[in-house]
């Protein structure tokens, strides 16, 4: 049966902790996780409807004798008469031997639930201890048992169940025992996989450092791990068992003719199918609805357990045109790209409100200039860059009064118009080269794609050009490496491929989004040198996104410092480094020698960038700023010209902040 077999699928799917809700976040968080679980489950109306229906079925099963004046085998006096619905007082009519269909339907819910419970109980009683045991002991015990498990699951579940029924004899109890035995293999496999995952985590946590994990520790770690997928799987297996009961009884090897199971009713209905299909309809719908209810309830549980949000479409969003603000600066004469009033808006997860993660950003990049966009994680740098290409991930919405690239206005362009800019006029390098390359295709093919699409090169022309490009970015032996797959490249080499791809169509602007962060420290320097050389050679403008002021010092001409969605300071490299005007900039500069703290706190600035929905209306930095006064807490702060640069700080004039030179002098 298609249905019993799909139990296997669900195992596979839910064996993946990402979908089945893996480990909870430790013991301290489990209370929180639990309440979030219930909140998510309550919000899921479909799952709730399933649960309500199941409660209804259970109620009918318990109350069956009181809901009807007949018993389950009750037949009319006319044993060969088949009453239609409504006829002779039989609401749903009778079957071909004159038995009341409604009565049998009520009693059928008993068989369905009992059969499901039997199969699932057998599966759990055998599967959980077996899975825990082999997962714990591993070695040869595990190998032998798994060999057996694989043998059993190699045969379709229902075929194996039938072979077991052949040995045990037919009948509903034996049939469900057989189904349960087959399902126990699924539970064994699932439990074992979770135990392995738990062991792995223990290992990572260093909980084993003191020695081998005790059984007590294993249990404490295993149970929270194994429970969510097991609960989900049990619900789904229950649905499969209800289907299996119906199917086996339909074949005549489950319920006997005196047992009013839904499957048996379907079998009886088939006998009179030359007269009418009707007796097959009510039990079929009963099976169908019950299975749907278990499935959607199980899916709801799975969604409630899993921590990751789902959804999202192909990540492209055009930039929406907005009116320019009253005092928006005009485009600078020599600029290649000039961005005005750029904002990016995202809905807050789990609420109806939304929030601007980028707020009113303006900047210009001159031809051949390198602008560094600097700030901690979460300050909105990458989103700013992506919105220039219309690539803000769904459901974000970028808006701007103007983004003009070499005289062309990008705001308001349709996807396909913007497509001629992407990859051709603007090239981009991402942070994680191994993730940014498609694992399924050779690097040659991926680098050649923009050449083919934008420049219309033939396959062989493109190949020739790709070989040249790979050579230019310093990949040894490019004729051979062109046919290699991304997984055959080191991180540094893969990033060189990305650079070759970004530069392939001679773009006017190159965006480098944390190009060295994911790389080995030893190749970071080489990569920066390469970027600097290539940019200078080609006279391409660069927007360099980084949290690392060391990188900025190496490459940038000008610097824009971003904090919590806003540019807080902007000026030339020399100005900003020597005389920072914003306390945040000072903090970044002070942190230079220990800039490894990207994911943690900056050593000199307590705290981290707050999430966008916590950004205040006044100075975004005030809460972390050691110089903050009452003036900082009143209304939005404008980006104003200060001594040497543009600064978004009310105290810009009065503070004497430490720049790079001061620090150097301090050191000497």
């Amino acid at each position: 049966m298609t249905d019993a077999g799909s139990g296997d699928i669900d195992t596979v799917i839910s064996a993946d902790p990402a979908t089945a809700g893996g480990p909870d976040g430790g013991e301290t968080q489990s209370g929180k996780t639990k309440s979030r679980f219930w909140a998510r489950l309550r919000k899921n109306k479909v799952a709730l409807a399933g649960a309500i229906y199941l409660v209804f079925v259970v109620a009918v099963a318990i109350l069956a004798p009181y809901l009807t004046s007949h018993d389950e085998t009750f037949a009319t006096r006319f044993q060969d008469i088949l009453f239609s619905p409504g006829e002779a007082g039989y609401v749903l009519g009778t079957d071909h031997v004159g038995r009341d269909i409604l009565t049998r339907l009520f009693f059928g819910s008993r068989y369905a639930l009992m059969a499901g419970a039997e199969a699932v109980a057998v599966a759990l009683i055998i599967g959980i201890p077996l899975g825990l045991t082999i997962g714990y002991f591993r070695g040869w015990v595990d190998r032998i048992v798994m060999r057996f498990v694989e043998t059993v699951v190699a045969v379709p579940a229902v075929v194996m169940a039938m072979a077991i029924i052949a040995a045990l004899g037919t009948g509903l109890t034996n049939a469900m025992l057989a189904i349960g035995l087959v399902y126990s293999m699924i539970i064994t496999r699932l439990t074992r996989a979770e135990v392995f995952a738990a062991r792995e985590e223990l290992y990572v946590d260093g909980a084993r450092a003191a020695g081998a994990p005790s059984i007590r520790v294993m249990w404490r770690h295993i149970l929270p791990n194994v429970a969510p997928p097991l609960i989900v799987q049990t619900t789904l297996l229950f649905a499969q068992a209800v289907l299996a009961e119906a199917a086996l009884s339909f074949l005549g090897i489950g319920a006997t003719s005196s047992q009013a199971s839904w499957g048996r009713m379907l079998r009886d209905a088939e006998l009179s199918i030359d007269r009418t299909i009707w007796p097959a309809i009510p039990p079929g719908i009963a099976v169908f609805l019950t299975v749907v209810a278990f499935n959607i309830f199980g899916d709801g549980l799975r969604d409630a357990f899993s921590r990751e949000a789902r959804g999202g479409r192909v990540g492209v969003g055009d930039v929406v045109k907005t009116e320019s603000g009253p005092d928006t600066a005009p485009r600078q004469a020599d600029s290649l790209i000039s961005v005005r009033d750029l904002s990016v808006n995202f809905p807050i997860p789990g609420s109806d409100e939304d929030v601007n993660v980028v707020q009113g950003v303006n900047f210009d990049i001159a031809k051949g200039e390198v602008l560094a966009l600097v700030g901690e994680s979460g300050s909105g740098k990458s989103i700013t860059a992506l919105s220039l290409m219309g690539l803000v991930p769904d459901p974000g919405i970028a808006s701007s009064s103007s983004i003009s690239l070499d005289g062309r206005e990008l705001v308001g362009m349709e996807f396909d118009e913007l497509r001629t800019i992407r990859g051709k006029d603007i090239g981009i390098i991402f942070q994680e080269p191994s993730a940014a390359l498609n694992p399924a295709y050779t690097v040659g093919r991926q680098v050649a794609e923009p050449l083919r699409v934008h420049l219309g090169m033939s396959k062989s022309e493109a190949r020739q050009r790709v070989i040249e490009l790979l050579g230019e970015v310093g990949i040894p032996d490019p004729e051979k490496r062109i046919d290699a797959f991304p997984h055959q490249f080191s991180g540094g080499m893969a990033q060189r491929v990305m650079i070759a791809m970004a530069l392939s169509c001679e773009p006017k602007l190159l965006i480098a989004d944390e190009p060295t962060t994911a790389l080995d420290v030893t190749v970071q320097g080489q990569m920066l040198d390469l970027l600097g050389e290539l940019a200078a050679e080609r006279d391409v403008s660069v927007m360099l996104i980084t949290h690392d002021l060391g990188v900025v010092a190496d490459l940038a001409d000008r610097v824009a410092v971003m904090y919590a969605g806003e540019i807080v300071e902007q000026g030339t490299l020399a100005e900003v480094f020597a005389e920072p005007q914003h306390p945040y900039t000072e903090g970044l500069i002070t942190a230079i020698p220990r800039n490894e703290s990207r994911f943690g706190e900056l050593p000199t600035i307590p705290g981290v960038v707050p999430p966008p929905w916590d950004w205040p209306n006044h100075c975004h930095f005030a809460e972390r700023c050691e110089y903050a006064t009452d003036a900082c807490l009143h209304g939005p702060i404008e980006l104003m010209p200060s001594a040497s640069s543009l600064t978004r700080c009310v105290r810009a004039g009065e503070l004497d902040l430490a720049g790079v030179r001061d620090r150097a002098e301090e050191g000497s």
Partner: protein
Amino acid sequence: MLRLLVSRMVAAIPLMFFVATLVFFLAQLNPVDPAATVLGEDASLEAIAEKRAQLGIDRPLVVQYWNWVTDAATGDLGVNWFNGEEVTTELRDRIPVTMSMVFGSLLVALVVGTTFGILAALKAGRWPDRIITLVSSLGLAIPNFWIGLILAYYLGVRLQWLPAIWPTLRPTTPFEWIEALILPCTALGISASAAIARQSRSSMIGVLQRDYIRTALAKGLPVRRVVSRHAMRNAAIPVVTLAGFQMSALIGGSIFVEFVFNVPGLGAYGVDSILRQNLPALLGFVLVTALTVVIVNILLDLSYAWLNPKVRPE
């Protein structure tokens, strides 16, 4: 690639052996004497003893097992205890029927399932997605034999558009075959289509959020190309895995659909052999089923290697 193929085939042999062994000894647990079943209720004790000798089941279990294994290794699966036919001959007649039904359903399920699954993924959260998700979760819950009964009744008996049961004379022309297969394949393929649609949707949604999709878009490729080249191939991997499981489920499901449509296939043969304790037939049935699953799994491995260069042998 050839080496992979051969090594997988060789690795499958012990599995087949284990399956057959498991079923052989499982069948011995039944206390009823098969010889008595063959001869019927009125048989004399002498006749039963004679039958036991004729079937070879009077010999020690180990000898019986050894004989079966050594014969099976040479391709001889013994004779049907009830009609004396060669099991291999009987299976050969029935394999094409069931396999055309099962592979037909799988093919339809793959086409229907991936099409709607991808459509749902591209419209995630909007109404086409909601409808496809709803329909597919209902599709998973429909008992195939029940929908088979309904299809046979309305389209077969009432409207007479398609044969309600398998023709008594074996269909000869391809048209007759296809005509006879439509209803059984539909009944069988619904839940497989639904399962594949769900998997395609979720794996497509997952892939569309990967960095390399952003890279492809940043290169200025048209969305159509990004989806069909960059996303589809990676999204296909979990779908292929599921198709393997579905294959096994379809073989199991074919038993019930064959029952409804009176199809003279493997499923009917298997059920009959179980009910009548026809051990050689049962073992033959289980072997063919397991072999099919094994072959499908080998095909899956090959397609993994094609889809995912990381698992390709160097």
